[in-house]
């Protein structure tokens, strides 16, 4: 399988060694900053330097006992969960429709549906700021949920759409020929099969909202500040170790999301391998 077997000449060996060395350095570059910030959150000192003078949980204590940080965590959860649910409904319906729709306008519609991912955050944020302010949607949870849903739905359309591509439509036809109503066929046949795709879509949607900060910067009032927004202010003012504690909490959420996604992918591959 591996290309290693084709390495024969010394020059190839040198090239391969160089690839490994450079890649290792890049891996360190990618991962080291995230690993370096973590131990600092357990430091007993308020200086963000190594070596740590001692270990303590005071910064986590600080985080948990600060109404500001806890409120921002709560806001991130509310907005994240609500926009995930909304984008799941809109995105799944659209993916189902797009899978069946045949038209020369389809690429155009698809491009429009996916465009919120490509358009720079500041442009969307400025547009929403002008558009939502006169109708009272700035400084409100609803406005942020709607905005985050617009950003998150493309990921749902992509992941669910990819799942539907590998879905055998004959199964739906079989269900219909056996007398299932369209709703029954969806609930009992289609849904169980595309569920892993839906779950990945939901994870992407949640991660998108949970990480978003530009729109929150423009639209959130003091009441709706999310965790990334609070970190933005914190980094701007001065970096206290409490921010590193917040960073560890955020990273833990990311790792859990990534691990769940990987587990879903593996399960999907296993099913494909053993199934039809």
């Amino acid at each position, binding site marked *: 399988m591996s*290309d290693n077997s084709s390495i024969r000449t010394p020059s190839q060996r040198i090239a391969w060694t160089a690839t490994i060395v450079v*890649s290792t350095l890049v891996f360190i570059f*990618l991962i080291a900053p995230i690993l*370096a910030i973590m131990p600092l959150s357990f430091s007993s000192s308020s200086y963000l330097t190594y070596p740590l003078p001692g270990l303590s949980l005071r910064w986590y204590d600080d985080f948990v006992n600060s109404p500001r940080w806890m409120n921002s965590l709560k806001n991130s959860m509310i907005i994240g969960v609500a926009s995930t649910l909304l984008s799941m409904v809109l995105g799944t319906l*659209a993916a189902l429709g797009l899978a069946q729709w045949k038209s020369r306008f389809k690429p155009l519609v698809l491009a429009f549906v996916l465009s*919120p991912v490509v358009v720079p955050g500041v442009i969307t*944020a400025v*547009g929403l700021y002008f558009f939502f302010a006169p109708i009272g949607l700035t400084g409100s949870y609803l406005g942020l949920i709607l905005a985050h849903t617009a950003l998150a739905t493309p990921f749902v359309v992509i992941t669910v759409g*990819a799942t539907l591509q590998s879905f055998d439509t004959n199964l739906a036809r079989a269900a219909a020929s056996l007398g299932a109503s369209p709703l029954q066929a969806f609930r009992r046949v289609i849904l169980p099969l595309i569920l892993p795709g839906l779950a990945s879509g939901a994870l992407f949607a949640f991660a998108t909202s949970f990480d978003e900060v530009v729109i929150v910067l423009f639209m959130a009032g003091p009441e709706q500040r999310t965790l990334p927004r609070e970190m933005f202010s914190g980094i701007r003012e001065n970096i206290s170790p409490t921010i590193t504690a917040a*960073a560890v909490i955020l990273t833990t959420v990311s790792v859990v999301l990534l691990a769940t996604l990987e587990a879903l992918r593996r399960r999907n591959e296993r099913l494909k391998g053993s199934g039809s």
Partner: protein
Amino acid sequence: MTNALLTGANASTDVPLKRRLRRAERTRQVKALALVLPLLLFLLFTFAGPIAGMLWRSVEDWEVRQVLPQTVAALANWDGKDLPDENAYAALASDIMAARAAGTIAIAAKRLNYALNGFRTILTSTGRNLKAVPEPGTAKETLGKINPAWRERATWTTIKDASGPITGFYLLAALDLTRNADGAIVAAPPDQAIYRDIFLRTFLISLGVTALCLILGFPVAYLLATLPPGRSNLLMIFVLLPFWTSLLVRTCAWIVLLQSKGVVNDSLLWLGIIDAPLRLIYNRFGVCVAMTHVLLPFMILPLYSSMKAISPAYMRAAASLGAPPLTAFLRIYLPQTLPGIGAGSLLVFILALGYYITPALVGGAADQMISYFIALYTTETANWGLASALGAVLLLATVLLALVYGKLVQGQQVTGGMKN
């Protein structure tokens, strides 16, 4: 209906069946469209509408029209060659009196001041010193006495240019251009001509970050595509973990690492490599390092998927035909990775163009990209026309590049460059 069916059954059975099938297909298509419709309407309200609104603001010109309506009407037929007639002066005096009563002079003054520096003073001082509507026939003289600027043609052409309802003023300003008193497009005065430099800076930072991502990402993608799946999946975590980590966490991490008492400087000092802390952050270096870190996975993933699709048989064939390894790599392998290189580079470049958070947090004043100024003019100085015009230029660049990207990945999977 029954008749038709009967004759159909007798004559040619396939026609009604065809028709029925076509009708069923049409119903299916309508239903499919009905499923997409909620999302389209939603995006119209939360995405397309707001962006269209922003684009409209980049050409809309309402302030002078609303505050000085009679003046705008009186200047409608003015040819702009000489000073306007007494009517225009009388209209202006009456408008100013009304605007002072309504407290709206500042709105028009702000708009006119963008076009002609010092106009704010002209208008507010006139508003303050105009005691009453001048006697008929004396408006020109009265206004000229209050402020001699009213005896200059440029003052009046500025008002006429700003009388809307649409204007190219902000879009021209975003490109360091302006109209002179004769209406010709000329270079903007040097103190206002800063945006080309900012666009150039944005372009250069994005280009540099894209190049760095390509140089660093290529060997990694090659390694991941060449290793056996077990090991490459394990190493993929090193790419995916940063990808999934919050942008704020990564930016914060770089500040902690690179600041003057940060981990990197401390280590270098301890090792004796340097005597005094290096300035690694709040400058261009910090911006490039942090942005490369954030965007590198967007380069590695499309490169990886394009390399994964290259069969090792090609390289073996090249070797068996006598090509030296370097020649085989340059002539057989590299050309096949070009779509991946193109997709990855374009994606990184597009994303980099719109960057705001990272430069705002780790850059100095001279490293802020175009997004920073759009945000600044929106929330701080409330020059919404200029913010929208700069946004329109950035949006145009992004859309054009995205179209090229779309052409490039056509045929490749839609998800190629997206997350995962």
